[in-house]
């Protein structure tokens, strides 16, 4: 027994390099497409080239006649299976039956029509090419505003108006606020359709074991446990015979927060052909058949007093849902409504959503999911109001922020903001930028005829999704902590991280709590047969909810370890440190391995204590968390070409307490890149017939290394009272703060020409035309 144990430095709060990385850096990590099984077949999906069409006939014979082909399946084969699930529910929501394969019609380009299964992926591709499908093209509609105009083609013939749902929410007395207004600012603001572009496309391997009548499904997903429940439901099989394993996931950004037709299809096929089957999405399929994000047309109205006091906000939100509901499709725009007041003390808000069917692939959660749209809207509106009032946009924001003494702050949309100091990040960003000097520089630039802009956006987001009442399948998260008989620690988390780094942050937490080295902790996730249960990683919840579950599991386990330790050291209480239980009075200690051995051998147990050192905690969060921040962007617009140069990018984010600053910085940078992508380059374009014109990465531009400015990232820290670590979540912050800051900056640059608003993406030609036309769009 050692007699002295020095207290190690705590790991939480330190920039620790990731424990995930060695396998990723050496190419030995196993992603979905790396999985191989004896006898494995490959599936290739035949998809509709049309946006809308009647299927007149399908001839699978030419495919079946080709070498290596095991089977071809069409809509008729799966008609009796369940539908692709939509978990969101809204009053009066119209839910089209979303078959795994098209029946008599196709509703969007990329709609799966048939699946070919062959012994090798080359042969499967050849055979898929040989399937003959005769279509009768039908009129399509791809623009949500055109879809709800009179005479538009009906996406689903049963609902001629193309309206999937309407949703009204009101807080306070908006009508009175608008009567009291001295200034009303109105603007139509769009948030264009985006393609998530996780660098790894989706994929599934299904392995049927006839002896057990069980199925193992490998899926590149963010939600293994939900996948298991939902796929079992589609197939009508017992959930305990379905195991979902999530291998390494190459990015998700919400696009893998879903259950798609292919998971159930591959499960069905594996069972039918009695062989393992793999399907890996091509990039074009990823563009055509994996969810898109955003797709908003928002009509905002902001009422204010001349002194800048904001009174009321109205929003009419036309949401482009696409042809079907995926898992959360109709719920995403409701998140925009919840966050529409931003950080401001609005008492009166009214929102009306019209969810619209179009002949496009469904929209659903994409990084930020509803909040970037809301923030973009309110932050553009506040800038427009500032201009209308001839007020500095900083001053206007500071005047209307919720005050530090007002938390928890009940919003007019029914939320309760947990904690905040909204002026702090803004002031920090201004100080860092040298705001007064920047304005002087801008005045000088304008004298010289240069178009320099300073854009500010402050944002709030709704994170740590989120109390179970708010989420269809529950909003809790779970964690199990085990001290193995050897004394090593295993953490099993229901969150399913895919690049966020919880294998490291959770190990930091466990190491600190148990007083062990980080290398003694292993974090396991993504296997429904191993991990107790879970919801998944999305909505900036991995650490804020999953971490809290771990926190409590650790507390419970610590209590048990202490009991064993105290019994073995024959003392009243012990502390955990240096991988041991320490009696602080005597300095005597006993190692975890010894404690664990005693706990598992169970020859002698402390009073009222079970054998073993395992603890599981399911944590139900009492509220969302509400991170916030301020982004400041300096731009210069090339008068001749319309090209935008970002001169400075300052991001000050408050995500509460930080567990690993290095990883938080990574989240901010990546988030900003996706926000900048929306602001400047990205846009999914369908033509009127339903053709996706941005069908590959050759036409859809995501940021490359040299597109990105240097991001000056820093933080303020306002702990959240919602969870015991005080964390708020940071996965989406960058995306949410970025686009309004950039657009505000470019509009500011063009303000001398009379420009008031520009819709994204701010392509050089769009800007050039505005300049050429003296500021008119």
């Amino acid at each position, binding site marked *: 027994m050692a007699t002295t144990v020095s207290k190690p430095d705590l790991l939480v709060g330190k920039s620790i390099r990731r424990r995930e990385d060695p396998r990723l850096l050496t190419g030995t990590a196993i992603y979905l497409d790396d999985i191989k099984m004896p006898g494995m077949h490959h599936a290739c999906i035949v998809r509709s080239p049309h946006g809308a069409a009647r299927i007149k006939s399908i001839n699978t014979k030419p495919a079946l006649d080709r070498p290596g082909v095991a089977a071809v399946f069409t809509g008729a084969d799966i008609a009796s299976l369940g539908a692709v699930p939509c978990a969101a529910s809204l009053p009066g929501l119209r839910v089209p039956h979303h078959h795994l394969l098209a029946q008599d019609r196709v509703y969007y380009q990329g709609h799966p029509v048939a699946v070919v299964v062959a012994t090798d992926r080359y042969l499967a591709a050849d055979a898929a090419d040989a399937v003959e499908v005769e279509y009768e093209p039908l009129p399509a509609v791809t623009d949500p505003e055109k879809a709800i105009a009179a005479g538009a083609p009906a996406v689903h013939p049963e609902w001629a108006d193309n309206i999937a749902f309407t949703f009204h929410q009101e807080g306070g007395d908006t009508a009175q606020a608008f009567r009291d207004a001295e200034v009303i600012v109105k603007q139509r603001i769009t948030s264009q359709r985006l393609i998530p572009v996780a660098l790894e496309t989706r994929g599934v391997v299904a392995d049927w074991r006839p002896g057990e009548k069980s199925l193992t499904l490998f899926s590149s997903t963010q939600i293994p446990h939900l996948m298991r429940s939902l796929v079992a439901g589609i197939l009508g099989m017992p959930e305990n015979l379905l195991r979902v394993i999530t291998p390494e996931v190459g990015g998700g950004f919400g696009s893998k927060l879903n259950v798609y037709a292919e998971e159930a299809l591959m499960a069905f096929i594996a069972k039918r052909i009695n062989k393992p089957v793999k399907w890996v999405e091509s*990039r*074009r399929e990823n563009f055509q058949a994996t969810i898109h994000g955003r797709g908003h047309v928002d009509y905002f109205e902001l009422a204010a007093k001349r002194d800048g006091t904001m009174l009321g906000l109205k929003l009419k939100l036309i949401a482009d849902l696409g042809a079907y509901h995926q898992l959360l499709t109709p719920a995403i725009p409701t998140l925009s409504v919840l966050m529409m007041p931003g950080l401001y003390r609005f008492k009166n808000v009214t929102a009306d959503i019209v969810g619209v069917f179009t002949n496009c692939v469904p929209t659903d959660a994409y990084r930020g999911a509803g909040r970037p749209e809301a923030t973009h809207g309110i932050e553009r509106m506040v800038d427009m109001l500032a201009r209308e009032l001839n007020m500095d946009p900083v001053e206007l924001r500071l005047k209307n922020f919720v005050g530090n003494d007002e938390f928890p702050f009940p919003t007019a949309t029914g939320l309760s903001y947990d904690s905040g100091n909204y002026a702090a990040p803004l002031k920090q960003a201004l100080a860092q930028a040298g705001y007064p000097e920047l304005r002087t520089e801008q005045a000088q630039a304008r004298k010289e005829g240069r178009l320099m802009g300073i854009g500010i956006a402050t944002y709030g987001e709704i994170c740590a999704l989120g109390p179970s009442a708010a989420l269809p399948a529950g909003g809790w998260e779970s964690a199990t902590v085990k001290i193995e008989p050897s004394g090593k620690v295993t953490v099993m988390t229901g969150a399913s991280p895919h690049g966020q780094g919880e294998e490291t942050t959770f190990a930091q937490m466990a190491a600190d709590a148990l007083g062990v080295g980080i290398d003694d902790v292993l974090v396991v996730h993504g296997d429904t047969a191993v991990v107790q249960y879970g919801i998944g990683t999305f909505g900036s919840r991995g650490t804020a909810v999953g971490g809290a579950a771990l926190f409590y599991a650790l507390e419970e386990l610590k209590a048990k370890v202490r009991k064993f330790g105290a019994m073995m050291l024959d003392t009243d209480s012990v502390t955990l440190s240096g991988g041991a239980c320490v009696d602080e009075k005597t300095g005597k200690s006993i190692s975890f391995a010894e404690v664990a051995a005693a706990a598992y051998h169970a020859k002698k147990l402390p009073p009222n204590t079970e054998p073993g050192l395992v603890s599981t905690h399911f944590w139900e969060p009492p509220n969302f968390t509400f991170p916030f921040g301020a982004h400041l962007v300096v731009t210069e617009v090339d008068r001749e*070409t319309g090209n935008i140069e970002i001169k400075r990018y300052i991001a000050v984010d408050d995500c509460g307490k930080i567990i690993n600053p290095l990883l938080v910085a990574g989240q901010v940078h990546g988030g900003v890149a996706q926000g900048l992508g929306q602001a400047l380059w990205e846009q999914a374009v369908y033509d009127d017939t339903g053709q996706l014109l941005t069908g590959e990465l050759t*036409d859809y531009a995501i940021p490359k290394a040299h597109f990105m400015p240097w991001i000056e990232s820093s933080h303020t820290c306002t702990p959240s009272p919602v969870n015991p670590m005080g964390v708020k979540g940071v996965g989406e912050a960058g995306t949410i703060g970025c686009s309004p800051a950039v657009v505000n900056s470019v509009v500011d640059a063009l303000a001398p020409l009379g420009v008031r608003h520009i819709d994204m993406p701010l392509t050089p*030609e769009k800007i*050039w035309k505005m300049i050429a036309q003296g500021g008119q769009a």
Partner: protein
Amino acid sequence: MIPQPFDYYAPATLREALAMIASGEHKILAGGMSLVPLMKLRLALPEHVVDLGRIPELNYIAESGGVLRIGAMSTHHDIESSAAVRAHCPLLAEAAGHIGDAQVRNMGTIGGSIAHADPSADYPAALLALETKIRIVSANSDRTIDAAEFFVDAFTTALEPGEIVLELQAPVEDQGEGYCYEKVPHPASGFAVVGVAVRVKKAGGKIAMARIGITGMGPRPFRDSMAEKMLESGTEIGQATQSIGQGEEANSDLYASGDYRRHLARVHAARALRTALTRAS
């Protein structure tokens, strides 16, 4: 994204290659940076592919008698990094450095690129400004034509079936010439929305010679000889570039309209000329 089956041939000599392709039924693989993606998309369905990548006699860069000779299978990287090209035709090295990305430049070849004649390729602007000649051979012919004759239309060149590009011959730029390649890349594909290559010579503080080649703007690359003449007769750059692309068809796509492309050609021609002048001695 799987190509259709095809037969593959990798001749070791030019003579062997020319014999193989004489029938005109073969598709030539010369790096494959455009061809391979098209085959994967099944937009190109060749049954016979002849890979020129194993013919050493097509891969050289050498200067002799005031002419820089570049074998067709020289990669963009070879050209970008060649001391001879940098010394004798720096404009071409600069244009090569703008093509695609590092991996594409390591595989793609100048012969393959120009034979494909993508209207947004980078080389043609430089080749026109450099007044390059292109040597074309087949099993029973050998001819040398001006670059301006080579580029006929979008994806259309003066190559006849059975012919390949053998060599590019660029006159060595005079010491003291200024040059510049200005490019507006498409943010996704990296192709030139517009690319402008210029060469200038100064004499007595004035522009004595100007060459302007433009790619990306229209269906085929062109030289703007009117702007060149105006510059050579003393018209100031801003004015001389005002009419660039007039009368030429302009491409239009989701990213940039024809009008905008034409405007960009003018703006970037002026910028390229100014840079070239600062580089000229």
